[in-house]
């Protein structure tokens, strides 16, 4: 129990505070600056956590544990481990990048807009740090509510229906998970608390790992949890909310959805699914891998057919996440490690992709690929940035995604040759649709709608520049990411032995 301010505390309360402050600002400029300032502060905190990563020596900096519902055995228990730190860093990087990239785009009712964005960040941080099942559930839902309002208020034409579909899917999934949480909770061991009272059950992560569950119970509990996480990722066949939601949400929200929020699903599998139900995870792994890989191929084909730029990226995101989920369930060292690395890199790359799309959509008002042409002539710098990001997205060597995908594929290959073969098809297809899109949108002759496109402003250059730098750094030297998450990967693998 820390008596001083800790990193997890800061990471939760700073965005909450920022959100509240934003709500009370009057002018757009002020809310924008408040959000940017706090998000940079949060980024600084999350970088600082990387320095304090000796698990024994710095335990008190990285963990917070207070009684919450004391007699129920629920604590406000949050803490940072390697994987948590990486995802917190990803979350902390995304927000300032998004704010900088969209600094010139006007927003109506900016105070509510930025306030809700900061609340989303608080929710996401909480999910990545929660070490208590009820706390986790709280943050899991809290990340959703502000996004619901953001997308429904500032989104595209069919936003209300699309966002509601998204909400109902995830809400249903979470409620099923809640039943699972209650059931596991009622099978955890007792704990003696300070004042000598014996609490029959607790919600803590450790208690969940040691819950008394028979194989049969594990089997259906696994499904209750898995549905919630599969919807969030999303993997085939739970993905149908996603293309519409990505298409209709305002692009900054889409960046958060696809860059950070989908990682909630993968993260939850690593922390709350496989270690809690190890036997059931092994039991279901083949089915899940095949589902994921089928999703990769299916989504890739849909991406090839797409004429809507945003939906194309949405489907490509489904394909990438499917591959990560498949690699995660092979449960061998190299692929799990690869997933960890890829979670970060995919987040960075996809946010870069959305930035470019946002710029195009804001300037031309068009998101149909067939109506765009020749942007390279009017905006050469934009095109260069896009090219680098797109090549990273299809995992070319020297870019960050290459390392992760390489590791994931060798894991899949070790597990079963066919996984790698069918999954590899997805990579080839991703090159097809990405390059095809680049060719159509950026090359060819300029038409009426693209003639007016201006090249990047300074803020956009900075945002995209940072992304490109990150792409190359982790493309050449991915070791820091691997080191950071190695302990989490090993812990996961140990839990299923």
């Amino acid at each position, binding site marked *: 129990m820390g008596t001083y301010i800790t990193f997890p505390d800061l990471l939760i309360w700073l965005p909450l505070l920022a959100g509240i402050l934003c709500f009370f600002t009057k002018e757009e400029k002020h809310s924008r600056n408040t959000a940017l300032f706090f998000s940079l502060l949060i980024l600084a905190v999350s970088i600082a956590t990387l320095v304090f990563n000796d698990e024994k020596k710095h335990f008190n900096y990285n963990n917070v544990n207070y009684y919450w519902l004391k007699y129920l055995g629920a604590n406000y228990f949050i803490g940072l481990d390697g994987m948590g730190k990486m995802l917190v860093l990803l979350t902390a990087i995304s927000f300032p990048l998004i704010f900088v990239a969209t600094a010139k785009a006007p927003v109506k009712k900016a105070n509510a807009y930025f306030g809700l964005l900061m609340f989303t960040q608080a929710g996401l941080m909480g999910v990545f740090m929660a070490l208590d099942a009820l706390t986790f559930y*709280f943050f899991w839902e809290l990340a959703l509510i502000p996004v619901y*309002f953001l997308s*429904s208020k500032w989104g595209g034409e069919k*936003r209300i229906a699309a966002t*509601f579909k998204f909400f*109902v899917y995830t809400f249903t999934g979470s409620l*099923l998970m809640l*039943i699972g949480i209650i059931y596991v909770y*009622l099978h955890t061991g007792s704990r003696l608390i300070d004042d000598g009272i014996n609490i029959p059950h607790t919600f803590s992560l450790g208690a969940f790992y040691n819950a008394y569950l028979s194989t049969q119970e594990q089997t259906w509990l696994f499904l209750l949890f898995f549905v919630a996480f599969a919807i969030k990722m999303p993997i085939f066949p739970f993905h149908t909310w996603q293309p519409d939601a990505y298409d209709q949400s305002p692009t900054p929200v889409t960046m958060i959805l696809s860059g950070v929020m989908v990682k909630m699903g993968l993260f939850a599998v690593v922390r709350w699914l496989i270690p809690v139900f190890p036997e059931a995870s092994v039991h279901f792994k083949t089915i899940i891998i095949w589902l994921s890989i089928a999703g990769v191929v299916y989504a890739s084909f849909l991406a090839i057919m797409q004429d809507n730029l945003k939906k194309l990226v949405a489907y490509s995101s489904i394909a990438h996440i499917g591959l990560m989920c498949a690699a995660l369930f092979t449960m061998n060292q190299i692929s799990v490690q690869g997933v960890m690395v890829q979670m970060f890199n995919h987040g960075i790359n996809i946010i870069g992709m959305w930035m470019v799309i946002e710029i195009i959509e804001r300037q031309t008002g068009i998101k149909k690929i067939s109506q765009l042409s020749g942007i390279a002539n009017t905006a050469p710098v934009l095109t260069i940035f896009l090219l680098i990001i797109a090549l990273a997205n299809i995992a070319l060597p020297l870019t960050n995604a290459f390392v992760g995908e390489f590791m994931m594929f060798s894991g899949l290959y070790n597990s079963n040759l066919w996984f790698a073969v069918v999954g590899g098809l997805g990579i080839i297809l991703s090159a097809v649709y990405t390059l095809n899109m680049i060719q159509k949108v950026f090359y060819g002759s300029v038409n009426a709608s693209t003639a007016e496109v201006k090249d990047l402003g300074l803020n956009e250059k900075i945002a995209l520049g940072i992304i490109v730098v990150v792409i190359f750094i982790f493309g050449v030297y991915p070791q820091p990411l691997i080191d950071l998450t190695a302990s989490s990967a090993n812990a996961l693998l140990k839990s299923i032995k």
Partner: protein
Amino acid sequence: MNAIILSAIWGVVMMFAGVFIKNKSVPKYLAVTGLVCVLVFNILQEFNGLSLFNFPIQDMLRTDNFNLLFITLILGCTLVYFLLNATEIEKVGEHVGEYYALIFFILSGIAIVSTFNTLLMLFIGIEIISIPLYILTASDKRNLKSNEAALKYFLMGAFSTGIMLMGIAFLYGGTPNATFYIHLLQLGTGTLPVLVAVGLLLLLVSMSFKVSAAPFHFWTPDVYDGAPTVFTSFMSTMVKAAGFFAFLRLFTNAFGALQAQWQTLVLIITVATLVIGNITAVFQQSVKRMLSYSSIAQAGFMMLAIFAINTKAREGILLYSVAYSLATIGMFGVLTKMKDYTIDGFNGLAKTQPLMAFAATVCLLSLTGVPLTAGFQSKFFMLMAAVENGQHFWLVIVAVLLAAVSAYYYFKIIQAIYFKESETDSIVFEGTVTSPFKWMLLVIVALILMVGIYPEIIIGLLYA
């Protein structure tokens, strides 16, 4: 005891105040004063054991920490209700003092059904609640719908009262002791004699009727829709919660040992209530009617407590009473200010009345059961109770899937409030949205969030 007698006395005071005081705005001050007194003396009885009246009641009423706390919560919610709706109550008709008098009588009845220890007291309490409600339903005298609703309510209510009385008679005749005291019934745990089984069944039916559980819910939408909105707000919240409390008390204290024999019946009623309430609410266009179906749907969730009858269920029913009452009072409070009761009538509310819009949204999120709101905690406790009970696990799955359905109709209003534009300029009665009303809405929001974040604020009192 304090609450029963004091609120009955204050009911009489209010009645006479109605005769002698002609000024319409005075009764509300009297009513609030009286209610605060009742509340204070009930709290004193709970924590200091202070009992003002020591009549030889022959053990017909029993107070303990649990039911005194429940009465405190109900009185607290009623206080919130008075403060929020005082001006609306004045608008219903000429006899303002009498409306308050009737509400105080109902409170007295609520205190009786929360503490009863004989079947007769249960019966008397239920009747003391019901009869003033018939009058309140009809209080909009010149409105045909209000009259029709009251008549319907009265006929159906009388019918269910008959059933209850018959059930009590069967129990009285069927048990060896021939007693009305529920702790002396001695029903054992084996197979029941036919008379007792019939008695139990009749009591189950009549209690289901009073709490509007399906398939005995048919009166609810019409009555809630027809009654003046302020009184619908009262009868769908505190009265319903008290009905559930009595239901739970009866089935725990009298029939608890026989759970295995009646659980399947309660299971059927629970599922039916959840399904009918939630599915029908989806198709409603009028928000008032939707809220009456939603009250049936919420009753389905409260039925989980009767299904489970364990510690979590007891804690859960307290939380649920508060969470559901506060959110519904808030929602009806907003509704009374609206010109148009359809969902489209809420279009663009956020633009003209941001605070009302925010409060309505929090109430709706609480009714849906989103974390951080009281509604989540109450649903969470109910689900825990049902899972802990261990029987018929699929019931909780059905319950949460229907909770997801409920998001559909609650969010339709949120969508109208925030994401749609209004065609007319004024969608609320402008002059009526006063700043005290807004402050009360904020208080309700604060209470909902407080209970949602830290429910031990209520449950902790049970073990204080």
